[in-house]
């Protein structure tokens, strides 16, 4: 295998140069998708803002479909491919398995992404990201998704192959690092997701060209969500892995306990797919027993996993900070954290908003009976902007501030703006999620062009507060898009004009991890034997639990006030 290895002089990370190129291209493709999705976001938000109402109905639904596909799928999965290649070849200090296959996967994804955008923008496929049958998109739309998914699947297998290479060539000893384990979790969920996607998208493609007569809409929903929701769990695993990565790089933090954190990742593998059942809670086709089972045992084990990570990640940071001497009071470790470093501030905002806004709202909307209050309202996009955007996208943005100097060998331009960007984007997106959920609680529906129902045979006036919430959605949506645009400008600007940095030395052979019993390894070893107490994290965790309990029961109170149903 003719490849070379580059050791980054700033981080000490070692890159297989073939893998490095793939990481760069995947990241760039992701950012381009984010750019397109962001322009679409502007159309969506300016139309749903009642005072502006920019686009006509047909363009609105078109733009909304493109926004969903570009953001939820194309941007995130391209970036995740880069994460997979990084977590395998770089962290395990070995060569990437089958780089040619990886390129094939990349180009398939590019073709899928371009074709998908074309199918939507041509106007024949405004079927939303969910593309519920019997509403039909053009065959190109389904074909595009299949090609993109096959490309991603190839990436997953290259990742798994790289794990095998590392094991065989003994580039490390013992177990794979935690971050790689998190990436492996994401990869396993991705393979399941893509298999489920094939199970539904292939028949749907055949139906769209007339080879299959009918697809049962309930069956479609059941199988589709096996892909639709678990594809978002790839993101959760990936961004949690990035939280650990950033905690390790910025603070030198060690997991409080390898056992606990890895077990939590393992719970994701076991239970997250089943949790997709919570999309079907207001559907006719499922029994109450099925709904309770799938959203209780199964989903709650996945929730438990996130609650564990929500404790162990800040816990690891607190322990690392306390070891450095920030031991005054409950929160000196947090106050003295590098809040001006966008890698950290982005990651911490991602952690907090994902937990408090995304996590709590997700469980509430996923509770069998409470779902009736929010199903298909604006609450749902409110929830997933808290999880996917505040959680995943913000975490990916944060890690990019680390990747630009390391991977692209460029210094970030405008450091002051870089400092501001995570706050601008993270906070406005958090407020946006909140006001969206507020509007949804008042009944405002999602995927709806006109709150005023112009042309309807009747009139219905939403409560004044709903209009207020939608106005705030518009304002904070525009601020959030500005924050996103700033990030793209900073990243693209740095790639083009940033100061070139020393790439470090190249070598023909990889340098494996130091053996575990070396002096270096022992020096960095603390382990749980000398466990540092983390009282600040305990307080934060209790705050999360208290908010969770209160908000959960408030919603039962709301439910008890609606019509009696059975």
């Amino acid at each position, binding site marked *: 295998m003719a490849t070379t290895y580059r050791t980054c002089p700033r981080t000490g990370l070692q890159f297989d140069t073939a893998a490095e190129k793939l990481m760069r291209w995947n990241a760039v493709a992701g950012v381009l998708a984010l750019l397109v999705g962001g322009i679409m976001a502007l159309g969506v938000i300016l139309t749903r803002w009642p005072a502006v109402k920019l686009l006509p109905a047909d363009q609105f639904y078109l733009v909304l479909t493109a926004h969903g596909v570009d953001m939820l799928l194309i941007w995130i999965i391209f970036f995740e491919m880069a994460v997979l290649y990084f977590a395998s070849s770089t962290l395990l200090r070995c060569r990437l398995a089958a780089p040619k296959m990886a390129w094939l996967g990349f180009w398939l994804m590019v073709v899928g992404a371009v074709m998908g955008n074309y199918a939507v923008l041509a106007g024949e496929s405004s079927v939303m990201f969910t593309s519920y049958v019997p509403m039909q998109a053009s065959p190109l739309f389904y074909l595009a998704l299949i090609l993109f998914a096959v490309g991603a699947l190839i990436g997953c297998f290259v990742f798994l192959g790289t794990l095998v290479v590392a094991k065989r060539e003994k580039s490390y000893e013992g177990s794979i690092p935690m971050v790689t384990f998190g990436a492996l979790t994401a990869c396993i969920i991705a393979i399941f997701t893509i298999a489920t996607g094939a199970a539904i998208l292939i028949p749907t493609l055949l139906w769209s060209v007339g080879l299959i007569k009918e697809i049962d809409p309930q069956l479609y929903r059941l199988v589709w969500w096996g892909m639709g929701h678990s594809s978002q769990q790839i993101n959760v695993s990936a961004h949690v892995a990035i939280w650990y*990565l950033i905690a390790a790089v910025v603070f030198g933090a060690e997991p409080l306990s390898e056992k606990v954190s890895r077990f939590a990742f393992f719970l994701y593998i076991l239970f997250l797919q089943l949790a997709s059942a919570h999309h079907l809670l207001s559907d006719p086709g499922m029994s109450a027993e099925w709904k309770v089972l799938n959203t209780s045992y199964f989903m709650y084990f996945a929730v438990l996993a996130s609650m564990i990570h929500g404790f162990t990640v800040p816990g690891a940071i607190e322990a690392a900070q306390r070891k450095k001497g920030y031991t005054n009071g409950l929160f000196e470790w947090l106050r003295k954290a590098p809040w001006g470093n966008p890698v950290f501030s982005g990651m911490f905002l991602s952690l907090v908003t994902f937990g408090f806004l995304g996590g709590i709202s997700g469980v509430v909307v996923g509770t069998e009976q409470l779902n009736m209050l929010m199903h298909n309202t604006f609450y749902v996009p409110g929830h997933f902007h808290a999880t996917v955007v505040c959680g995943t996208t913000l975490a990916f943005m944060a890690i990019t501030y680390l990747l630009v100097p390391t991977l692209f060998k460029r210094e970030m331009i405008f450091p002051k703006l870089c400092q501001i960007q995570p706050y601008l984007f993270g906070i406005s997106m958090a407020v946006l999620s909140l006001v969206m959920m507020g509007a949804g609680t008042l009944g405002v529906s999602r995927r709806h062009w006109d709150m005023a129902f112009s042309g309807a045979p009747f009139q219905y006036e939403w409560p004044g507060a709903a209009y207020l919430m939608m106005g705030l959605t518009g304002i904070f949506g525009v601020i959030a898009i500005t924050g996103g645009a700033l990030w793209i400008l900073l990243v693209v600007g740095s790639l083009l004009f940033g100061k070139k940095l020393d790439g470090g030395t190249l070598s023909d052979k990889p340098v494996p991890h130091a053996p575990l019993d070396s002096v270096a390894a022992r020096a960095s070893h603390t382990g749980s*034997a000398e466990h540092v107490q983390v009282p600040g994290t305990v307080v934060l965790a209790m705050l999360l639990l208290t908010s969770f309990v209160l908000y959960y029961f408030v919603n039962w109170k709301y439910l008890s006030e609606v019509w009696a149903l059975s």
Partner: protein
Amino acid sequence: MSAILPPADRLWWKQPIDKTEWVWISLAFTWAMIMFGMMIYWHINGKQNLSNEVYKTTPEAYAAKAEKFIADNTVRTETEKNIPVVKVPEGGDGYLIARLWDWYPILEMERGKTYKVHLSSMDYQHGFSLQPVNINIQVLPGYEHVVKMTPTKEGTYSIVCNEYCGIGHHTMLGRIYVK
């Protein structure tokens, strides 16, 4: 930097778990079980649960039943489109058709009485969203969902379609009167 390095202790799974972590895991687990219990508790003691009464049907078969119900129980018509206002018999069945782009017909019910409302779609997927009480139910073609409803307050209620069903989606507004 051990999260990006192989665990320093090869036998990491043998390391003891700290008490603080155990406490948090137990708390989180207990809370998850309480939430699980709440769903079952609500089935027994709560008044708001979705019904499991569902039948496979076809748009034609469902439309025939709905038309019969409308012919038998219409009390008047409303709006320029002459949408029938249909009084649902007490304790009896009311049929609601979802189609591009209306809810048909208008139902009339009485406060505190219980009715069996049937929901199905003639074409795409639609969303039954009753405002301002905010009850949201998915409506699928081919499935007849029977939901027992007991209105608790008098008034004019609107049914907003909250599942995207095409360009005229925003005009899909229906009515329920409660006397």
